[in-house]
C-alpha cells in the first residue's frame, strides 16, 4: 500500500506566478529603503560635522554613482508607497453604514492625498 504524493517545493517558488514576482519586488523595496535610510543617517552626521564637511559630502553625492543609487532608491521608495496605499483599503476598510468606502477613494483619502501633501510641503520648504 503506497501513500499520497507530495509535490516537491521549488526553491524559486517566487517565479511561479506573476503575482509572486510582484510580491517579491514589493518586499525587496525594504532592502533599498533601508539602504537609503543609512545614507540619510550619514548625511545627518555630516550636517552635524559643520558646513565644510557637509558641502564636501554634498559634492560627493552629486557624482554619477550616488545619483544612480538615489534614482534606484527613489523608485523603490515610490513603489513602496504605491503598493502600501493599494493595501490600505483591504487592511483597513472604512464602513459608512452598510457600504464600504470604495477602494480607490479610500486609497486617495488615506494614502495619496496625505502623501502628496507631505511631499509637496517638504520640497517646498527646501526650495523656498
Amino acid at each position, binding site marked *: 500500500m503506497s*501513500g499520497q504524493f507530495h*509535490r516537491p517545493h521549488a526553491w524559486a517558488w517566487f517565479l511561479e506566478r506573476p503575482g*509572486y514576482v510582484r*510580491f517579491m519586488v514589493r*518586499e525587496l523595496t525594504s532592502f533599498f529603503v533601508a539602504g537609503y535610510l543609512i545614507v540619510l543617517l550619514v548625511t545627518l552626521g555630516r550636517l552635524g560635522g559643520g558646513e565644510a564637511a557637509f558641502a564636501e559630502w554634498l559634492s560627493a553625492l552629486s557624482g554619477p554613482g550616488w545619483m544612480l543609487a538615489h534614482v534606484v532608491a527613489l523608485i523603490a521608495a515610490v513603489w513602496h508607497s504605491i503598493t502600501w496605499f493599494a*493595501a490600505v483599503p483591504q*487592511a483597513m476598510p472604512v464602513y459608512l453604514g452598510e*457600504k464600504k468606502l470604495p477602494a480607490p477613494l479610500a486609497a486617495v483619502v488615506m494614502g495619496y492625498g496625505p502623501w502628496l501633501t507631505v511631499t509637496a510641503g517638504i520640497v517646498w520648504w527646501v526650495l523656498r
Partner: protein
Amino acid sequence: MSTELTMTLEVFRYHPETDHEPRFQAYEVPYDEDWVVLDALNWIKDHVDGSLTHRWSCRMGVCGSCGMMVNGDPKLTCAVFLKDYYPRPIKVEPLVNFPVERDLVVSLDGFMDKLEAVKPYIIRDDVNDTSGGEYLQSPAELAQYKQYSMCINCMLCYAACPVAGHEDEFLGPAALALGHRYNKDSRDQGQAERLDVMLVGEAIWGCTFVGECTVVCPKHVDPAGAIQQAKAVGAQEFFKRFVAPKGAGV
C-alpha cells in the same frame, strides 16, 4: 462526425497502488463552446478512461469540490470554459500545496483541521437562553462580515498561497478569513477563544500578504484583507494588555 473539432487535455495521473511518480496522460476530447473543463473530464471518465478520479458535485460554483490547477492556475473546473483555452492544450493538475490522494483528488484532512481550529460557529455565553428572542442584527452589522461568509471551501486560495505551501503552522487564507468572519459577527462572543488559536506561532503571522488568495478566490471573499484586519485586532489586543489589567472585562 469526422469534422468534429477536438482539443487536448493533459491530465495529471497518479494511482498510489501502481505509480511511484505522477505522470501526465493526454486525452483528445470533443471541443464544445459551451463546455467547461469539468465537462471534458467527465467525458473522459464516461467514454475513455473510467479510472480517472476527480471530485465534483454542483457544477455551478457553489459546492467548492471541483478545484484544480488549470494551466497552472487554481480554478473551479466547473467555471472555466474550454473556449478560453482552445485550440491550445489544457493541463489539468490537482491543487498544489495539498497531498495528492489519487489523480486529481487531494487530501482535505489538513484543511479540515484548520477550518475546525478557528471555531467557525457563533459562540455565546448565554447559548441556552432564548428568552430574549432571536439575536437581532442590523444591515450595517451584517455588512461587517458578509463578504467573508461567502466562502465555499474550495481551497483555491491555499493553492495560490506560497506560505500555505511552506509553513505547516499557517492556518491559511480560508480558515483565517472564516475566523475573522465570526469575530466580526455582532452576535458572537468568541473572539478571545479564536484569537487564542489564530495568534499563536505562525498560525496567522506566517502571512506576508502575498495577496494571491484574493486574486484567485471565485467568491470574492478577499481572505488577504480579512487576514490583515485580523492581525490588526491581534495587535490591538496585544497592546490592550498593558492598558487594562487582565480580567478587567475589556
